[in-house]
């Protein structure tokens, strides 16, 4: 895959064939950027020192790239199978590193339900009454039934015949 930082004019055509989220959106060639499927999320803008005109220009380019809706790229073909593998391996190494780096062998525990500040109190309390359980069950059943019965009232025919020969 090409690198768009290249200043080689001839390569630009081929570079934009495979845009990915790291392809710079700021290449100063207006027509060239139309195919960009710019990913949402933070756009990393290049530091631009060459003045207002230039920065305005890049802003417009970036906006255009954001506005373009590329419906052709349903899958990211940008990444080669091998690159994928490499990246997955890298991730798993880094994950190990990060988890180790976070110190103290962490034991992950599911969080307590919100609203329970002192579990011992909740656990020591008397179990809820059977009538409450029944109430919950019957109400949820009724709700489920009601949801199943949501349908549209028929008022008039939607289809009419026309153009009788």
């Amino acid at each position, binding site marked *: 895959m090409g690198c768009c930082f290249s200043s080689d004019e001839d390569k630009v055509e081929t570079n934009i064939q495979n845009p*990915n*989220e790291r392809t710079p959106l700021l290449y100063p060639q207006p027509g060239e950027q139309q195919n960009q*499927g710019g*990913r*949402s*999320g933070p756009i990393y803008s290049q530091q631009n020192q060459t003045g207002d005109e230039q920065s305005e220009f890049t802003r417009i380019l970036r906006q255009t790239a*954001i*506005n373009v*809706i*590329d*419906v052709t*790229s*349903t*899958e*990211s073909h*940008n*990444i080669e199978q091998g690159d*994928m593998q490499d*990246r*997955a391996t*890298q*991730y*798993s190494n*880094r*994950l*190990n590193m*990060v*988890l*180790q780096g*976070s110190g103290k*062998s*962490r*034991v*992950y*525990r*599911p*969080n307590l339900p919100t609203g329970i500040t002192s579990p011992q109190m909740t656990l020591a309390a008397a179990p809820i009454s059977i009538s409450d359980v029944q109430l919950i069950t019957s109400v949820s059943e009724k709700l489920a039934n009601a949801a199943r019965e949501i349908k549209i009232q028929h008022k008039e025919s939607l289809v009419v015949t026309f153009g009788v020969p």
Partner: protein
Amino acid sequence: MTEELKTYLLKLMGTVEGLHAIAITDRDGVVIVKVTGQMAPDPALRPPFLSVFGVMAEQASKMGIGSNKRIINYYSTYQTVQVNHHPLLLHFIADKNANTGLILELENELADVLKEINKVVGMM
């Protein structure tokens, strides 16, 4: 260390009946960590499937109703719940009858884990 994380994810997965797999990937669908049950459809945990959500989340963000947060798909046998947790994507693959609300709730349970995994992608 990764094993501990996987054990935790498996434990979470067990709390929702019918949930077959949890995968955490980057925006291109490259797997960072995943756990699967016996019933999980294997191809759905590979990049060709996982990468679609990243592209679709990006497109959905252009519908004029703000940035995309989640996409839920109901298929004839499975449902997928996919969450855009920038820069990570969460994928849950479950039986079509599984409780979608419970699956969505897992995102909160995963908050701590996601903070750490964020660092992994941040390094790239």
